[in-house]
């Protein structure tokens, strides 16, 4: 499998520092195929400690990806998030200035022709396939929770102050429920977009689709961040794009070439 990836993080217009962290990392699987890990973590709270929490998630993932032969991707994702949860709780208990810190995490690993996603919090993953965009993750916010029980409409949730209050975050509670999505079969030209809520606050789903479809990943990331900043940029903004490419070694034409060559 081949991928084209790009990640970009921006401090925004208001915040004094960037508490978002991300990871973009190619992985070699044991059958020598390409795989890739893309992760967004949006840190928060504590006394200047949001970035400590978000970078801890990334550190745990990096470490686990180094020492893993990608046996079960779902377990790797879930266990890494749980490990980061304990680690962040331990850190905040031991240091007063780290008390109360937490982070979201949305992690995507594409391997074995499947996309695996695990997440906690309100950073999102989208899939753009054949010019349609679909939100894959469900925000763990009070507003979204109320929507799912019919206490609020989707429209109300978009402007409710409760859209910014998390039901779950990494580093807050020993008992953490991680959402692991059903693995998705991937096809050439599928595009995955991961982002922190600094983007969602300002850029609509359809705009994301349009920008991503009409631009190369690097300029699409830049354009989306510029749009969010132009409209206020009150939070840090992180965007990651993963495009699944056609395998140059597959298909009729290359098989024909191989035949002729032999």
């Amino acid at each position, binding site marked *: 499998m081949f991928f084209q990836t790009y990640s970009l993080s921006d401090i925004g217009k208001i915040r004094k520092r960037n508490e978002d962290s991300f990871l973009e990392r190619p992985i070699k699987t044991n059958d020598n195929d390409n795989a890739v890990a893309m992760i967004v973590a949006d840190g928060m709270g504590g*006394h200047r400690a949001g970035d400590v929490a978000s970078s801890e998630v990334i550190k745990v993932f990096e470490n686990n990806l180094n020492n893993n032969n990608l046996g079960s991707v779902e377990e790797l994702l879930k266990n890494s998030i749980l490990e980061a949860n304990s680690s962040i709780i331990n850190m905040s208990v031991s240091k007063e200035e780290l008390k109360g810190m937490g982070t979201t995490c949305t992690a995507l690993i594409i391997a074995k022709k499947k996309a695996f996603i695990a997440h906690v919090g309100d950073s999102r993953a989208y899939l753009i396939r054949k010019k349609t965009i679909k939100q894959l993750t469900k925000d763990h916010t009070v*507003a979204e929770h*109320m929507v799912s*029980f019919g206490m609020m409409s989707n429209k109300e949730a978009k402007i409710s*102050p409760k859209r910014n209050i*998390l039901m779950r975050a990494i580093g807050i*509670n020993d008992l953490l429920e991680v959402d692991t999505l059903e693995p998705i079969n991937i096809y050439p030209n599928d595009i995955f977009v991961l982002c922190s809520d600094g983007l969602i606050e300002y850029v609509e789903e359809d705009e994301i689709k349009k920008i991503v479809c009409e631009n190369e990943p690097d300029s699409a990331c830049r354009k989306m961040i510029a749009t969010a900043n132009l409209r*206020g940029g009150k939070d840090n903004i992180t965007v990651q794009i993963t495009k699944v490419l056609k395998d140059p070694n597959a298909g009729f034409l290359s098989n024909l070439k191989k035949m002729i060559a032999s």
Partner: protein
Amino acid sequence: MANLFINVSLDSKLIERVRLDKEKISIGRDSDNDIYINNLAISRYHARILVENEKIFIEDLESSNGTYLNGKKTNHSEINEQDTILIGKYKINIENKTPRETQDSSAFLEDSTVMVDNDTRNKLLEKMGFNANATKDEPSAKPVYSKVKLPRIVLSDDLEVDIEGDNFVIGNSFNSNLYIDGFLIKKKHATILKQANQKFTIVNSGSFFKPTKVNGTKIDQKTLISGDIIEIGKHKLLFLS
């Protein structure tokens, strides 16, 4: 005055922006106000903003919970762009937009953020049950529910009740801790009991025809977990701890 706006925000989020284009702008819970805020902490006709001789004033209309200018209660004061008015949990300020800015950002008006001075904000956050110190250096820091006063019941977008005391009674009586009405709702329909280990148990005392449900299932007694939905008749109550 053409480029003056009144911004209303809640939790550092701008929720309404009204152009200050007349001499009187009324604010209150009644829907015929110019700025209508549907929240029980706001009086029906709470306050108004007046323009006299190119000066802007805030006037409290003998509201129950008062109008605060930069943290101090006020009846009638001149205000300018630097001032922050607090009505209930809602923050109001005046913004002057230059003609160019107005043109450029007109499409994104609802997206801008308003900053407040630290003291007002901390008071505001404390009022809302947030720990002000935890978010002191970041006006827009995102609260996780652990930082909000807990436990609580959320009834709707703008109605929340703290669960106080060891016996929190829900029912069709003004003496209950949470008043709900409706057909066959008892005076004491359900009780949330505080246990020794910081856990909460809900006990049903409603009738067979109108039982208390948690997450869609009838219960006699159940330990509540954060995120549980308590259903009594048409009412849905979100429990957060």
